[in-house]
């Protein structure tokens, strides 16, 4: 295990940010700390980095007891949501910072900076100031800067949170590829479940200062431990009292399925390639069904139509009738 967090508690005044949190993060993997804003995930990351201190509990990094080690001695790379670029230094100087602090020989620094700027595709910008870069470029520079010191772990605090949707998508794909190249143990904080599912090997779901579940993206999606995880990872609707994903609901225009609930379509909404149908069942449930445009057209769905809905037998509703 690369990072061991044991029984960490952190309070800010009366507010409990983390309550008895224990997590083991494996070496070489890309782990996401996922949860709603204010849930404590950034605090956990900052405690791992040494930028905040835990009130109770211990942190071990690569076998080194790090609980009382200052940030500068932990050898972790940290990437901030708002980049935290050194405004008065050129891109190359930013990346070289950690190496110059470590008094590495000049030619070695230059070679390493060059290599890193190539890695993040910024080699032609090495003499620019950060203010002349776009947000995505700044964040890539910040990443190169963090990687320059060959950290044992790389920590990213909502790294793409300040970027627009398109750049965010590009950068997270790029981050995944980068991780496959560099293989440094990486932990990143996000409140975007799509981002977490797409990029990470493992997800730690954190809510209200507690770990709700730890597992692979598939595990979490298919076998959520509780209602919160299920609801946070994707949309949830209820059919006959069972919580299911809207795309796991079968809809038919005739009562062919046993146990299907009868109802009336109250709304048909098309968003791009998908169609969302809201069905009011006779049992008083409001069921959301998600299907492709082709499928909806084939069925000829329209408002005020009588339909039958039931959970897809192939989909395992792990959270059956919980609470």
């Amino acid at each position, binding site marked *: 295990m690369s990072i061991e967090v044991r029984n960490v508690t952190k309070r800010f005044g009366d507010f409990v940010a983390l309550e008895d949190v224990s997590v083991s993060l494996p070496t070489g993997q890309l782990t996401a700390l996922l949860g709603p804003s204010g849930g404590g995930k950034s605090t956990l990351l900052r405690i791992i980095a040494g930028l905040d201190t835990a009130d109770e509990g211990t942190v071990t990094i690569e076998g080194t007891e790090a609980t009382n080690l200052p940030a500068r001695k932990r050898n972790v790379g940290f990437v*901030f949501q708002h980049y*935290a670029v050194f405004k008065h230094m050129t891109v190359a100087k930013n990346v070289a910072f950690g190496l110059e*602090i470590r008094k590495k020989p000049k030619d070695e620094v230059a070679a390493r900076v060059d290599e890193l700027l190539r890695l993040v595709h910024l080699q032609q910008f090495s003499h620019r100031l950060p203010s002349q870069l776009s947000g995505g470029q700044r964040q890539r520079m910040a990443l190169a800067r963090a990687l320059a010191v060959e950290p044992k772990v790389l920590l990213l605090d909502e790294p793409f949170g300040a970027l627009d949707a398109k750049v965010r998508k590009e950068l997270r794909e790029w981050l995944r590829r980068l991780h496959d190249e560099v293989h440094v143990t990486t932990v990143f904080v996000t409140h975007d479940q799509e981002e977490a599912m797409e990029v990470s090997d493992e997800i730690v779901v954190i809510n209200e200062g507690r770990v709700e579940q730890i597992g692979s993206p598939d595990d979490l999606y298919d076998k959520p431990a509780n209602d919160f995880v299920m609801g946070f990872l994707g949309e949830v609707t209820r059919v006959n009292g069972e919580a299911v994903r809207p795309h796991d609901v079968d809809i038919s225009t005739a009562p062919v399925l046993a146990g299907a609930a009868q109802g009336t379509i109250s709304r048909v909404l098309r968003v791009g390639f998908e169609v969302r149908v809201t069905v009011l069942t006779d049992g008083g449930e409001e069921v959301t069904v998600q299907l492709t445009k082709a499928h909806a057209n084939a069925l000829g769905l329209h408002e005020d139509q009588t339909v039958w809905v039931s959970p897809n037998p192939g989909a395992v509703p792990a959270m059956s009738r919980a609470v």
Partner: protein
Amino acid sequence: MASQTVEATRTRDPHPRSTARGPHEDSPAVKWVMRVLVVAYLFFLVAWPTSLVAKNTFANGFQGISDALSDPDVVHALKLSAIVAVAAVLINLVFGVGMALLLVRFDFPGKRVLNALIDVPLSVSPVVVGLALVLVYNGRYGWFGPWLEDQGLQVVFAKPGMIMATAFVALPLVIREVVPVLEDMGDDQEQAARSLGANAWQTFWRITLPGIKWAIVYGVVLCLARSLGEFGAVKVVAGNVGGESTTAPMLVQQKYQNFQQETAYSVSFMLAFAAVLCLIVVALLRPKEGDKK
């Protein structure tokens, strides 16, 4: 430093002032009235009186200045003023930057009280400052004075007291310039530096200081201008020891009262010129920084 902050915000904001623009701002009549008001205000309060000093100084060409500079009293006063001002500025530079860091980056009990205390020198009359220092450091009946004098250090009626009085009066200038810039800068960059292995001193020297350097330059210039011109506090502390402890502003008053108006004007002009020179130097240095950003 407010202007620098505004510039920084503007570059980040793609539509500066688009919401702040009032409907009346476009009316040419209002614009002209405002302009005339501002120009008249500045003219009657600042430009005209100052220009009269210059006019009187150069009534006989450079004769006045060269006469003044050949007077040993004037030379001594100017030298003393320079020494006192530079010493006070150095003290305020070190403590000002330290205090600003303390106020912005650290939380401690009594922070708000300290913050309020820093403005005391601006609100209290300099004469009161001088008197207070005399009470504490006076060689005969002050709190510390007799002890210090036993150690061979005379504070009041000597240079150390004059430097203290000047430093006291100009104390908030560096702090008040640096604090908003530090706040605006945030501590993200400092945290990044720490996580990259920099210790406190390296972080300050390589990250914090470059970020606040223009605030410091501006604070120092204001501090220098204020220190050169300080009269009340220094006069009380300097006492009546003849020409030995007379600074340039005090000399202006003496000469003026002794009907040596020409010398008074010349020294006044030199003081004003030094202050303006400081501001010009800053104005010249600054745009370069703007281009680089």
